[in-house]
């Protein structure tokens, strides 16, 4: 039985808009929500600039520690946690690559969105296994329009 990651519709729209605008480069950002429990609900996203060396951005992204720190602080300000990372694979399947795994952290949810010719058409959610041997896939669902009440 795999865990579930769900995202509210408004946040998903913001995620898609960011990744389509970044095409043909990879786009990325943070998934914000509640960090407790096995199943995760993403209630907001934080888009971040891709800091990887310019020419390679069509298949690489980088979020710097400075951006991560700023993201953590913004999440805390909203009473949320950083619970994962989203990024796109332009014209490539929504599956983690070997490179993704080298850089992955446990616990975070990693969503990967395939963007085909500028249109986001497939999103899947993954978590790194404890022993770093590979990924487990989450069930990924999109909530209806109503937003859950924010915490605090």
């Amino acid at each position, binding site marked *: 039985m795999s865990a579930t990651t769900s995202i509210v519709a408004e946040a998903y729209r913001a995620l898609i808009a960011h990744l389509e605008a970044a095409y043909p480069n990879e786009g990325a950002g943070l998934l914000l929500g509640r960090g407790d429990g096995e199943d995760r609900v993403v209630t907001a996203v934080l888009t971040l600039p891709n800091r990887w060396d310019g020419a390679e951005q*069509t298949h690489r992204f980088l979020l710097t520690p400075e951006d991560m720190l700023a993201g953590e602080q913004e999440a805390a300000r909203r009473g949320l946690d950083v619970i994962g990372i989203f990024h796109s694979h332009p014209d490539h399947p929504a599956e983690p690559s070997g490179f993704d795994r080298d850089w992955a952290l446990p*616990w975070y949810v990693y969503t990967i969105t395939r963007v085909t010719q500028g249109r986001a058409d497939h999103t899947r959610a993954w978590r790194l296994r404890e022993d770093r041997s590979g990924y487990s896939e989450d069930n990924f669902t999109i909530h209806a329009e109503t937003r859950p009440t924010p915490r605090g």
Partner: protein
Amino acid sequence: MTTIRIPTPLRQYTNGQAEITVTGADVGTALNDLTGQHPGLRAHLYTDAGELRAFVNVFLNDEDVRHLQGAATPVSDVDRLMIVPSIAGGSDAELVRVDHAALRVNQATIIVLAAVGFVLDTPGLIVFVAAVMTLGTLRRSPGFRLLYTAVLKPLGWVKPDVIADNAEPHVFAQGLGAAFLWGASLALFAGAPVLGWALSWLVIALAALNLFAGFCAGCFVYYWLARFRAPGFLKTPPTGTFPGLRPRG
């Protein structure tokens, strides 16, 4: 006793604690003490070869220890260490994909600005174009990319035209164009207008050749240098493509 702050995803290995107190005179021994207290952290902080993983950044009071003395950076009791992840990833696509629409907007802008510089006899415009192209080369993207990403693409006036291609030759070609324009600027300000405008027109002509005929002369030079194993020139043309010609999409 120094305090180390643990990032959220690794707190499951510290029984949920956000901050751990460690002993050690420098960053290396402090981290050693941390993984000694919480062995589950080791696999995620270090590679099998014992190196700190690429995404693990250690900050000492808001400063990255890589900019200090690395693992040998001394720490004292009042110091605070923070482990901050950087996040990277990406697809395993082999050939980089290059948006040729962004390249063409860049070429068209160079042509227009340099030609206007000639018509109005304004050497300053040539300096401006040379500077933008140089900045673009350093950032490894088209100098006038912003015009495409922030204006023309969002308006839908120019559609992306993404082709599997090498990015480096295009970066090199722009650098070559910038070098010619710096030469032109020098000539124009040194009182040699004929040489200056001739060099400018050479850049205009080569940009137009690329824009209208799809032949990138700078890329041709790049692949030619690569053939003769010039250091740093590593890429070969995409399969079935004549060096410098635009690959078929």
